[in-house]
C-alpha cells in the first residue's frame, strides 16, 4: 500500500526543510549507493542521503572536508572511453550485448536510440518510462537507452539513478550496461572494482524491476501500444546478468563481460527494505533542525549530532562525512573506530578505557568470559614482552 499522498508531500516538505531553504536536492549517486551497502544501519547517512543533502559541502562546513575528488585525467579518459563505446548509435555496445548475453536473437542492426533529453530528474524519469513503453510496443527490435533516468524509493523518499545505458532486447527483456574505465586484463579485472560495479548495477536492476512491474500491472491499452491491443502486456523481464564494459588490456578497445548480479541484487533489496524509514528518523529530530552548509559550524555540528551515526573505518572509502564521524568516534573512545572485528571481539565492552581497565583488572566482572579472556591476553602479552627484554 503506498502511503497516503498527503503524507508523502508532508515528508517531502520536511526533507526540504532539513536541506535548508533554496538548497537543491542532490541525487543519490554511486558513492551514496556504495555507502548504503557498506553501512545500512547508519541513521545519519540515511537521513542526509534521503533528504538530498550535499554531504561533501556539509563536511567542509563542519571543518572535516572529505578527501574524495576525481582527477581530471581519469575523468577525461573515462568520458572518452564511454563515448567510444557508444559511438555510431551504440553499434559496438549492442554488438557486445548480443555477443555476450543474447546470441540467439537477431544481430542488432538499425537499433532504435531514442532521445531522452528532458528537464529535471522527474521529467527525465517520465521520458525514460515513455521510451521503455514505446520499446515494448516494438517487439523484435533492439533499443538502446543512453543515460536513462530511473526513480527508486529509498526509505520513503525517491532517489534518482542514472545508469550508463539500458538495452531492450528483441524479446522485450531489459539489460543494464555499466561502462567502467578500469581495465579487463587477460580476461580478469580487479575484484573489488567489479564488486562495486555489480552493487551499483544491482540498484539499477531493482529500479527497473519496479518500473517493469508497474508497466505490467497497467490495464490493457494503457501501455500506449496500438499493436498490443487485445493481448495483455506482461511485465518486461529485467535480466539478472548485466554487461560490464571495460577497456581491454592496455588499450582503449572495449571488452565486455556478463556479470551475474543476483546475489548483489538480493543483498541490496534486503538492505533497502530494512533501512529505517526516513520519516521515522525525521520525526525523531528536534524541531527546526537544518543541514544547510550556510549555517555556522557549531549549529551544523549540533544538527548532525542529533542523528546517531554508526561509524566504522569502512566509511572512509564510502561516505563524505566519514572524517567528521571518525573524530567524534575517537573522542568518545569507541573501539569500533579501530575496525568492526575489534568491536566483535570485545563483547559488551565498547570504549577503549573500559577495555583497558578490564584488562588491568581495575574493572569488569572476572566471570564475564570477555573480561577473563582480556586479562589472560594482557598477562600473556606482558610475559612475552618481558621475556623479549631479557
Amino acid at each position: 500500500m503506498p502511503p497516503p499522498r498527503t503524507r508523502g508531500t508532508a515528508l517531502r516538505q520536511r526533507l526540504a526543510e532539513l536541506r535548508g531553504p533554496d538548497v537543491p536536492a542532490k541525487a543519490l549517486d554511486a558513492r551514496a549507493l556504495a555507502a548504503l551497502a557498506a553501512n545500512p544501519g547508519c541513521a545519519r547517512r540515511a537521513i542526509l542521503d534521503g533528504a538530498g543533502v550535499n554531504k561533501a559541502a556539509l563536511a567542509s562546513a563542519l571543518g572535516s572536508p572529505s578527501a574524495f575528488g576525481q582527477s581530471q585525467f581519469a575523468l577525461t579518459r573515462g568520458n572518452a572511453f564511454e563515448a567510444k563505446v557508444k559511438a555510431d548509435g551504440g553499434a559496438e555496445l549492442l554488438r557486445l550485448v548480443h555477443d555476450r548475453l543474447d546470441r540467439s536473437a537477431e544481430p542488432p542492426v538499425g537499433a532504435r536510440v531514442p532521445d531522452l533529453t528532458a528537464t529535471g530528474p522527474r521529467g527525465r524519469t517520465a521520458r525514460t518510462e515513455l521510451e521503455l513503453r514505446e520499446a515494448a510496443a516494438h517487439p523484435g527490435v533492439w533499443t538502446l537507452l543512453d543515460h536513462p533516468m530511473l526513480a527508486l524509493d529509498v526509505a520513503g523518499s525517491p532517489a534518482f539513478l542514472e545508469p550508463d545505458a539500458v538495452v531492450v532486447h528483441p524479446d522485450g527483456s531489459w539489460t543494464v550496461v555499466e561502462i567502467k574505465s578500469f581495465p579487463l586484463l587477460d580476461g580478469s579485472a580487479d575484484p573489488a572494482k567489479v564488486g562495486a560495479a555489480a552493487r551499483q548495477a544491482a540498484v539499477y536492476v531493482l529500479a527497473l524491476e519496479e518500473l517493469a512491474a508497474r508497466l505490467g500491472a497497467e490495464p490493457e491499452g494503457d501501455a500506449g501500444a496500438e499493436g498490443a491491443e487485445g493481448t495483455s502486456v506482461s511485465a518486461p523481464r529485467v535480466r539478472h546478468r548485466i554487461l560490464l564494459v571495460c577497456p581491454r588490456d592496455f588499450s582503449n578497445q572495449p571488452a565486455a563481460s556478463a556479470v551475474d548480479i543476483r546475489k548483489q541484487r538480493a543483498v541490496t533489496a534486503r538492505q533497502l527494505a530494512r533501512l529505517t524509514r526516513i520519516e521515522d528518523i525525521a520525526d525523531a529530530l528536534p524541531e527546526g533542525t537544518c543541514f544547510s552548509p550556510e549555517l555556522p559550524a557549531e549549529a551544523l555540528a549540533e544538527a548532525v549530532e542529533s542523528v546517531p551515526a554508526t561509524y566504522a573505518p569502512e566509511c572512509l572509502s564510502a561516505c563524505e562525512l566519514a572524517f567528521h564521524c571518525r573524530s567524534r568516534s575517537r573522542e568518545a573512545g569507541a573501539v569500533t573506530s579501530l575496525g568492526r572485528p575489534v568491536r566483535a571481539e570485545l563483547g559488551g565492552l565498547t570504549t577503549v578505557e573500559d577495555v583497558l581497565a578490564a584488562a588491568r583488572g581495575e574493572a569488569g566482572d572476572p566471570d564475564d568470559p570477555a573480561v577473563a579472556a582480556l586479562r589472560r591476553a594482557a598477562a600473556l602479552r606482558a610475559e612475552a614482552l618481558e621475556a623479549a627484554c631479557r
Partner: protein
Amino acid sequence: MSLISTLARLEAVSTGRAQPSATVRHRHLGDRPLVFVPLTTAGEAGAPLGALVGTDRDAPRLLVVPQPRDRDLRFAFLAELADVVLPYVDSYAETVEAAERTETDPETGKRVKVEVELCADAPQLIVPSRAGIDLVRLLGRSMRFRRTAEQDPEAPYPAPPRVPLLGRWLTHFGERARVPGSSLLLAMTDVLGRHWVTGQSTLEDQHLGALLAWIDPPEGTTGAEAALRAELERDAQGQLTCPPAGPATDPAFDNKLLAPAIERYDRARTALAAAEDGLEADDRLGALTAAEREIRALVLSRTRPTWDAVWRGLDLLRELPEGARVEERWTRDRWSFTGHRDRVLAGEPPQPRRDDAVTAANKLATREREQARLEAQEALDDPLVMAGRRLSGEAFAGEVTDVAMAYSEGKRPSPRPLITVRTDDRPHLGERTKVYRSLGGKPQSAEFVAAEEDGAVVVLRVLDKMGRGKEPEPGSVPEKGDRVCFTLFEHEQRGGAKLPDPEETPWTHGGPPGEATLEAADPVTEEDVL
C-alpha cells in the same frame, strides 16, 4: 586478529604510540635493497608518470614521463628503469654457491641428489605500499610480451632492448610476493604493519605516512596527532603536505599542478614542431626543456617524501633483531631467484598469461604450505606471536614438575618418559593429541596422556629425539624445574601429494597444455596506454 594484538591496538590508542606486535624481525632485509617509488597517471591502466628508484638513499634516480599518453616517452621511461633494475638483478646472479637438490632421475625414476648452483644472495625490491606490488606485477605484464626490433623487425612500435626482460623479472618479483613469508618484493606498509600495531584501524594503516607517524612520532606530538596531520594536512595551495605513497596521486595535485604543467609541455612541443628556422627552434627547445624540468620537479616533490619514508621504515625495521628462522625462508627466496635466472638463461619464453592447471595447482599448494610454515616459524621465533597461539589454545608453556622414566613395550624397549607440566594455559588437548617442542631447532614430539587438577597439570609422553640407546641422550628429556613450551601445530611442513607433470594433466583439468606456443604480444592500437 588475535585478542593480544587488539589489546595492543587499544594500548596504542591510550598511549598515543604504536605498540610492538613482534619482538624480532620476521622478514629478511638485504644489505642493499632496491627501493622503488612509482607514480601512475589516474584513469590509465598503470601508465607510469614517474618514479624514484635506487639503492642509495641519498641519490635516488628520478625517472619521469612528461606526457604519460606518449608511447615513445613511456618506452624511454621503461628503458631507463631497465637500466637501473637489470644491472642490480644481474649483480646477484653471478655469485653462486654449490648446493644439492633431489631430483627424479629420468631413467631409473629414483630420487637422486644432484649438484646445482644456488645464488649466494638475491635482489630485494621494496615498494611503499601494497598497491605498489600490484603495479610491479602490472608493469611486468605490460612489458614481458613486447618485441624488440631485434626479435621481430616487422613489429610496429618495437620496444627498446631489455624492456621485455625487465617485464619478465618484474613478473617474477610480483608472483613471488604472493608467497607468504617471502621477501624478494616487500611493501613497506605490510612489513611495518606486521611488526607494530597502531591506534588506528588496519585500513588506515595502509597510509605509509600515518603508519610511520604512529610508530615514530616527531618530538612533542602523539602518534594520533602526527598521523592525522600526515593524512589530511594541506598547504596553502591545497596540496597534501604528506603526499600519498602512490602509485596513485592525489586528485588535487593532478588537477591543480600536474594538468597545467603537462598542458604547457604539450604546447611547447607543438610549438617546437612548428618552428620554421634553427634560431626559432633553439628558443622553443629551451621552452620545452623548461616545461619538462617543471614536470620533473613536480614528480620529485611527490615521490621524495615517500622515498624518505620508506628508508625511515627500513631504519626502524633494522633495529629489530632478525628472527632465527628468517634466514631459512630467505634461502627459499634465493632458490626462487636462481630458478628464474636459469629459466631466463635457458632462453625459455616469458611467463604465460594464464598458468596451465598443474602449474596453477602447484602455486596454490606452495602458498598454502608456506602460509602454514610462516605461522609456525613466526611463533617459534617470537614469544609474542607464541603468546597469541597460547591464548587460542594452540600451544602451552609451563614448568616441568615431575619426570618419570617409562619404556615402550616390544622387543627393544625404547625410552618413553612421562613428564608432568604445570601450566596456566588451556590448550585444546584430546586423547593422544600430538604436541611438539623445539629441541635445538628440531621438533621433538610428545603425546598427551592425562590432565589433572582441572587442566592445570598436563602429563605428556615424550616420543622421539632421544637417541638409539636404552637411556635417553643427555639433554633430550626435560628435567624437573625446566620451562618448556609445547605446540599443538607441527613445526615443519610436509609437502602435499605430488601432482602429475603438465604433460600428464587429466582431461578433467583441460588435458595436456600441448606444445608451448610463443604468446603473441598485445596488439598495438592507436590509444595504447602502456
